[in-house]
């Protein structure tokens, strides 16, 4: 990517956001930006401030388009062509930071949850529809329809282009964070060791944008820290044979410590506010795991306590499973198994983590035959490749010991 193209991509979120708020039309904002970007690339001498140049050029495009739409085609033809790009002011005009508004619009709870991140990736990050479709494992046509429908709803249902009133933030911000969390989890699971962390990478960018824009919202900081900590371990999640490596066995030298430090700073900042929440607790759990790089051991007693707190805020099967695993490190495998027994595998929407956890604890307890059948159950439940290899390797290790 050329230097100019890179600067254009960087300027995109702010410029498109400002344009969208200016003309109150997502499509028009995107089109005008694309038009301005193409003209910018044609310039012999690249403008000094690319963002300001793009904003001015795109605004003109918006005005032209609206004029063209409104007036008679004949009367307008001439006027539209008088716009010379050379006329564009060289004086940079300040661009108001409207990214937050655009995120609130794209992640509005009135939009279907599966459309929200797709819309955000398209409008804010400028990802092509084909790319977004690939990230969400769906066809380009389906994704195109989903995004088009979402844009139409924003326009026709009158979703506000204003920042919501502060009192409405709790619900709206929750929707934004949940949207990012779900998309991130989807990306992270799909990555499942197959080194396709692109969706999680793009979503992480959005999560960090939200944290930067809302430094006084502890849960926004918590989510950004959580995402950053997961990304920091991206390179250690799979070994050279493509087999998943569990967190407790990862090579810490492959972790990204700059990202870890940033996450720690954000969590500290969040803690000052003394309004805890699930994202902060989840990030704290990950941070405790990461401390292994400094302490050479993991404090599972702390992790168990944090899972207790998380369970109180957001109970769910994954919390029970992870808590049982942590507890087993403190009080033994049998104790962890007891916790798992309380769950009903039949009722778990995704029972694979349950069987994988059971297999691990049964192995530790020396109950090899039961461990093997738990592994079989987990393998049958269609794990991603890296996880399947990991489970299969565990299974052959069981028999090697016999």
């Amino acid at each position: 990517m050329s230097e100019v193209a890179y600067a254009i991509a960087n300027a995109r979120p702010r410029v498109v956001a400002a344009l969208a708020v200016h003309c109150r039309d997502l499509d028009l904002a995107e089109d005008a930006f694309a038009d301005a970007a193409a003209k910018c690339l044609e310039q012999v001498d690249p403008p000094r401030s690319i963002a300001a140049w793009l904003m001015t050029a795109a605004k003109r495009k918006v005005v032209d388009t609206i004029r063209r739409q409104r007036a008679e085609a004949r009367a307008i033809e001439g006027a539209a062509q008088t716009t010379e790009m050379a006329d564009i002011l060289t004086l940079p005009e300040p661009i108001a930071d409207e990214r937050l508004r655009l995120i609130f619009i794209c992640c509005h709870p009135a939009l279907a949850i599966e459309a929200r991140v797709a819309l955000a990736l398209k409008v804010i990050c400028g990802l092509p529809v084909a790319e977004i479709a690939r990230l969400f494992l769906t066809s380009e046509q389906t994704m195109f329809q989903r995004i088009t429908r979402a844009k139409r709803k924003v326009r026709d249902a009158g979703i506000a282009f204003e920042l919501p009133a502060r009192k409405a933030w709790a619900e709206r911000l929750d929707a934004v964070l949940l949207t990012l969390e779900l998309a991130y989890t989807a990306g992270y699971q799909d990555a499942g060791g197959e080194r396709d962390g692109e969706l999680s990478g793009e979503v992480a960018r959005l999560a960090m944008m939200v944290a930067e824009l809302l430094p006084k919202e502890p849960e926004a900081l918590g989510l950004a820290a959580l995402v950053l900590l997961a990304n920091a371990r991206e390179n250690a999640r799979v070994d050279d044979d493509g087999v998943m490596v569990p967190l407790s066995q990862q090579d810490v030298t492959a972790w990204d410590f700059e990202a870890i430090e940033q996450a720690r700073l954000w969590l500290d900042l969040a803690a000052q506010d003394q309004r805890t929440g699930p994202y902060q607790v989840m990030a704290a759990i990950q941070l405790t795991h990461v401390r292994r790089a400094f302490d050479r051991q993991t404090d599972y007693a702390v992790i168990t306590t944090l899972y207790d707190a998380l369970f109180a805020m957001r109970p769910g099967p994954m919390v029970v499973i992870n808590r049982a695993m942590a507890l087993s490190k403190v009080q033994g495998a049998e104790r962890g198994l007891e916790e798992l027994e309380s769950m009903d595998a039949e009722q778990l929407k995704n029972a694979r983590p349950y069987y994988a956890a059971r297999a691990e604890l049964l192995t530790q307890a020396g109950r090899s035959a039961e461990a093997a059948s738990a592994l079989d159950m987990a393998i049958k439940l269609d794990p991603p490749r890296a996880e399947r290899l990991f489970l299969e390797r565990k299974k052959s290790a069981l028999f090697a010991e016999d």
Partner: protein
Amino acid sequence: MQYMMLIHEDETYYAGDDAAQKMEATIAGHMKLIEELSASGLAWSGERLQGNETATTIRYKAGESALHDGPYAETHEELGGFYIVDAPDLDTAIEWARKIPVPGDGAVEVRPVWVEEQ
């Protein structure tokens, strides 16, 4: 923009020994909402419909009509009334729609009214 709020409620909620009290409480909720709407200065209208046993439906099959005794939708949650509120945006409309009392099961559908381009 005008938003129509269609109120669908399970009418069986208003059956039983304390039916009158339940209905009274819901109506009081509507009166309160109407007072708030009037005080807000927004243009609005709204009506309560009679029970679904009073409904007559003209059903069409390939353009041919036939009258039927009963409501259109065969669900437990019947259209019981509506409001139309002229709100600046969807969020404001939703904020008002949330104030519509639905003590039992039901749903309030919020839809913008079609605007003819000028």
